[in-house]
């Protein structure tokens, strides 16, 4: 299907007004799907843009970027024999889902390593910049970097996961003009050159956030990962209106002045999440364009999924590797590079939308940044809906203040015991007490962040840091403040109520419930995501 015209001339994202002839709309529903008929006359659907064409020769584009960096010298000229070189790279939370081999990180790092070898640099460390995320397993590292890199560095102990709780492994670089502490991985901080290999899937990623957050620890991260900052970030997907990013950029200043020399490599990918063909391709088509074959595929898939136990469904979806293509690569000085990256990112994601809506509907998929090869627990459901999707806006939120958010997800009361131990306790202990982010922050954050057992599991097992569930909750703090009501369709009522939301068994019921808040003739907007879109709301 290489001749598919859509590859060469992809259509931009657009807003569909729902009328009587509009077919039922696809809602992601965890590891399953729903087809929902939206009320005609007052509903609209925002579709993402079709995938932009990938770069024809990624290897060459990467090489050119490294040799012709923005506001910086060519990478080979920065490398000298005997120097200390550290390559840090984005962790498992990007991209979503994991991409097909070879991963972009592998492509970039192989070239960086080749240049380092040519320059006679021996002292090279590779660090997964996971901040307070869980450690990557051997298999996951091999997937991201390739066997060649892994086998060459891991056995020597030169490829490893960042450990923010290693008492001997962290340094404090100083404080920002707002008195924010800046901490960094000691090896990275003490390197002559820190090359950061980034993979931008959304506009939140990259820039100073890569190093200031990714290689930092709790004392540095808590400066911006807090309720106040998140409530002032409108949105945290819009770098220039995000308090989160401003704080990271201030920390970047400190890194620039007191830290290692940073060479930033940023890449963007297209929207080809489910492929042009294959079993899931139907998910990135527009419903009224579904062929008979698409319909049959979808029906077959849905019947199959319905018959499967949840664990098998999870296995199938988690094994899906997206055929993402590289759309841009830029290297050099952090801030200049990031501005270009944002442009490339928005090119794919931005969809202009006129005006806000009373009710925003979302179909939440099976994956978010924190459950790769894991379980999407209720807290992550909240974070994906109220954190990520709600904030996919520029200008003003898609839904008006006091409006209603309706999300569709099974929200099972399930947790991965190894990956999310502190989430379990957060859900059982903290949320049963209060769901107010500020109160949670005040009352419980310290206890979880400094818990010895969580620290032990973060360092030696594969657990997210004890404080991580709090950040998930803070991520939704802006939305919690903004919205009049949150309803989850088709979720486990017990977990939905624990989250402080209202359960509904069908979308019709949910709309009925929403009318208590926004009236019976409320406008409805459905965000057809993923593939990813970002609404530019005027």
């Amino acid at each position, binding site marked *: 299907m290489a001749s598919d015209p859509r590859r060469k001339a992809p259509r931009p994202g657009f807003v569909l007004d729902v009328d009587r002839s509009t077919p039922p709309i696809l809602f992601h529903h965890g590891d399953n799907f729903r087809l929902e008929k939206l009320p005609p006359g007052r509903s609209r659907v925002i579709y993402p843009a079709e995938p932009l064409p990938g770069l024809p020769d990624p290897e060459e584009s990467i090489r050119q970027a490294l040799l012709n960096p923005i506001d910086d010298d060519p990478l080979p000229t920065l490398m000298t024999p005997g120097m200390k070189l550290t390559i840090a790279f984005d962790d498992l939370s990007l991209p979503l889902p994991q991409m097909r081999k070879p991963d972009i990180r592998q492509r970039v790092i192989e070239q960086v390593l080749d240049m380092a070898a040519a320059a006679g640099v021996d002292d090279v460390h590779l660090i997964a910049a996971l901040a307070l995320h869980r450690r990557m397993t051997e298999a996951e590292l091999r997937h991201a970097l390739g066997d060649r890199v892994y086998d060459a560095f891991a056995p020597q*102990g030169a490829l490893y996961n960042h450990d923010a709780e290693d008492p001997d492994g962290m340094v404090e670089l100083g404080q920002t003009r707002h008195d924010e502490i800046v901490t960094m991985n000691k090896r990275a901080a003490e390197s002559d050159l820190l090359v950061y290999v980034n993979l931008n899937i959304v506009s939140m990623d990259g820039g100073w956030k890569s190093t200031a957050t990714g290689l930092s620890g709790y004392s540095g991260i808590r400066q911006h990962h807090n309720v106040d900052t998140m409530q002032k970030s409108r949105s945290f997907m819009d770098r220039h209106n995000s308090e989160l990013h401003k704080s990271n950029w201030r920390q970047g200043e400190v890194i620039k002045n007191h830290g290692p020399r940073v060479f930033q490599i940023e890449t963007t990918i297209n929207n080809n999440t489910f492929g042009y063909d294959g079993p899931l391709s139907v998910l990135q088509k527009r419903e009224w364009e579904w062929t008979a074959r698409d319909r049959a595929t979808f029906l077959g898939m849905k019947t199959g999924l319905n018959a499967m136990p949840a664990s098998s469904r999870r296995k199938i979806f988690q094994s899906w590797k997206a055929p993402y293509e590289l759309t841009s690569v830029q290297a050099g000085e952090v801030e200049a590079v990031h501005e270009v990256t944002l442009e490339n990112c928005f090119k794919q994601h931005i969809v202009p939308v006129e005006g806000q809506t009373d009710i925003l509907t979302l179909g939440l998929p099976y994956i978010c940044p924190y459950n790769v090869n894991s379980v999407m627990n209720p807290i992550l459901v909240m974070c994906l809906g109220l954190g990520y999707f709600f904030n996919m806006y520029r200008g003003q939120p898609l839904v008006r203040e006091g409006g209603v958010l309706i999300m569709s997800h099974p929200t099972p009361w399930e*947790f991965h*015991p190894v990956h999310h*131990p502190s989430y*379990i306790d957060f859900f059982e202990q903290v949320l049963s007490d209060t769901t107010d982010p500020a109160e949670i922050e005040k009352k419980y954050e310290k206890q979880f962040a400094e818990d010895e057992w969580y620290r*032990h599991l973060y360092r030696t097992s594969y657990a997210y840091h004890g404080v991580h569930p709090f950040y998930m909750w803070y991520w939704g703090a802006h939305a919690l403040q903004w919205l009049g009501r949150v309803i989850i369709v088709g979720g486990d009522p017990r977990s939905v109520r624990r989250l402080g939301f209202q359960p509904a068994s069908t979308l019709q019921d949910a709309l009925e419930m929403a009318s208590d808040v926004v009236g019976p003739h409320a406008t409805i907007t459905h965000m057809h995501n993923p593939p990813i879109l970002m609404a530019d709301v005027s």
Partner: protein
Amino acid sequence: MGVIRESLSGKRIAITGATGFLGTALVERLLRAVPECELVLVVRPGRRGAQHRVDRDILKNDAFDSLRAAFADDPVAAGGLEGETFAEMCSRRVTALKGDVATDGMNFDDESLAVLATCDIAIHSAAAVSFDSALDDAVEVNLLGPYRVAKALRDAAEVRTEPTPAGRAPGTPAHLVAVSTCYVAGSRRGKAPEQLVNESPFFVDVDWQAEVDNARLARVEAERASRQPDRLEHLRGEAYGGLGPAGGPAISERTEQLRQRWVGKQMTHAGRARASSLGFPDAYAFTKALGERALVETRGDVPVSIVRPSIIESALAEPAPGWIRGFRMAEPVIAAYARGLLKEFPGVPEGVIDVIPCDLVVATILAVAARGPKTDDNGEHHPDVTQIASGSGNPLEYGQLVDLVRSWFTEHPVYDEKNQPISVPEWSFPGRGRVSRQLGRAQKGLDLAEKVLDALPLRGRQAEFGAELEERKDQLERASGYVELYGAYTECEAIYELDNMYELWNSLDDNDQANFAMDPKLVHWPSYVHEIHLPSMVQQARLKMSPGNRQTSSRNDRLRKQVLSDNRQLAVFDLENTLIASNVVASYTWLATRHLDAPDRARFVAKTLREIPTLLALDRADRSDFLRYFYRRFEDAPVDRLAEDASEMLSDLLVTKSFPAGIRRVREHRRLGHRTLLITGALELVTEPLRPLFDDIIAAEMSVSNGTYDGRLTVVPPTGEARYQTLVDYASAHDIDLQEAVAYADSSSDLPMLEAVGFPVAVNPETKLASIARKRAWLIEHWDKSKGAPSRTLPIGPLSHGINSHGNNTRGTSKSRKFLTRSKQ
């Protein structure tokens, strides 16, 4: 003022059995209705003396509620002195006297006799009424009791130096009113007049003294039989079956308990057999009959009156409608029926069930006491008999009672644990044999189910099902006990005549008749059953009359709060199945398979699976032996590699299979400042990654030579009583009071440890521990694995890629070959 009050005024009345149902009612009525009398209550002293017993076990009873309220309101109107409180009135009028009717001489000393000497009347209402009392116990209390009281009264009269305040002269014994039972007439049909037992043509006159001797001998023989080697062995087996591998001392203690229970059962059986051989429904009626006989024969110059009630039931009006003390004759049967447990009860619908409200009995006794002993024309005392029963004048038919009970429970159903109302069955009035057979079958079914459950390695909620089954079995056992016992009563179709009673009744003036109602005709059975008896009975029996939260959940909350109180000092945890759904075999298998290639893994798994039954059997027999045997497999395992694998196992096996609520609980204890301790039979290398969770870990340790383990234990895994000892040593080393310690464990092999601490918690208990924990009201926690945990059928280590993070090759080095080949075999 009526005749009764007038006659009893100024008298001192001794009462035995005042802690019983009838006795309490007597005390209450006398204190309330005869304000001018004084009471001497003969009670068995508890540890804290007779007075304490009177205060706690008698005067605190709710029978006194209305009198207490009246005193608070207006002491003078309530019959007291100006400004007097209820307690002051009691201490003025009530004297506690320690004494025991089951002992020769009643444990009286001179001082006691002197107190007794001040009494003009003695009411003997102490009796062993329990349906399963042992023959010799019943003999001591029911047969010899009245005889001993009479003797004490004679002795007291001898030591009396001056007349009693009411004027009874020295040497003149007090009037003894002995409470007996209508059923001394035996199981027979027809009229049963108010005559002494030996005057009845149906009475088989046996030598009561010989019965006493033989009852005592039966005890000696039963004790001897219980110590026969075969019997002891059997009992020990039974103890093991109930407790499992709980260790020697616990089994011994249990065996002794079971032996005593066995002796008790033999004695109960002996009593029932002897009673029925002489035509009595049970040992109670039999010993009561001989007690009357012994009393009359040995009374000397003690004037005696006998009052025989039939089955005493809750009060008609006084002290309060429905008032009852204890769980009495018909109640357990009715409760069992309401719970749907008893589907049938023997009896004929036309048969008469002779019950009598307790206030009518009290009135009769007081009327007899007020009237005084009967004398003939020559002034000679002759023992007289007064019966108080409903069968002749106002019979309650068995069929009618069943209808009343059934209609009431249909309208007011009892709720089961799932909050479903239980519908009560219709009775078909079968014969006693059929009911017994039915119950027997049900019991056999439950026995079988229990055996099956016992044999299955169940845990947690399923195991609790086993415990429920056991509870049901207990209830059923009790139900068949009732059938056996009370069934005999439903077959007693004697009509108890009330000539003397009515003579007494008619002699009373209107005032007395109003205050001391005793005519059974006053009872309107339908309203008595529906409005008085059943509402009070369901309260007494604590039947669940409305759907609602299970009591257990609130109880668990309460217990949990105690466990997590600041005052606790130590929380000790078992590991396997308490905090983690895993065991030593799983961790060994995980470690051993981690470095095997695919075909070897398959072979290893097959072999281990074959071994499982043997291992399980060994584990059940003795856990220490099992661990010693099993750990030999680690011989030649390289220390370094296992340490590294163990840290990987933390994620892949331990945390994956952990109970998050359990892990959370450990940390809650730590946060509260309690010391936390893990005691486990698992290997130290396995528990090493868990170190940050606990203050201390006591685990099995293996000795090491040349960098490999040799499979021998240097620290014996603490199990059973060794675990208890380890805990005791630990506590004393750290100056911890075990009464302030909490222990969490899952198996009955941890029983010694659980019993040692003040706050035991059964976590996901297996069947035996579940039933023990339920019986002792321990906190039971059900901790589950996290939903969403990766599920794996077999605990196989993910294949190591051959290189660890330090770059060492971890595939079979020569050192580790034996460990691996052992696994390959």
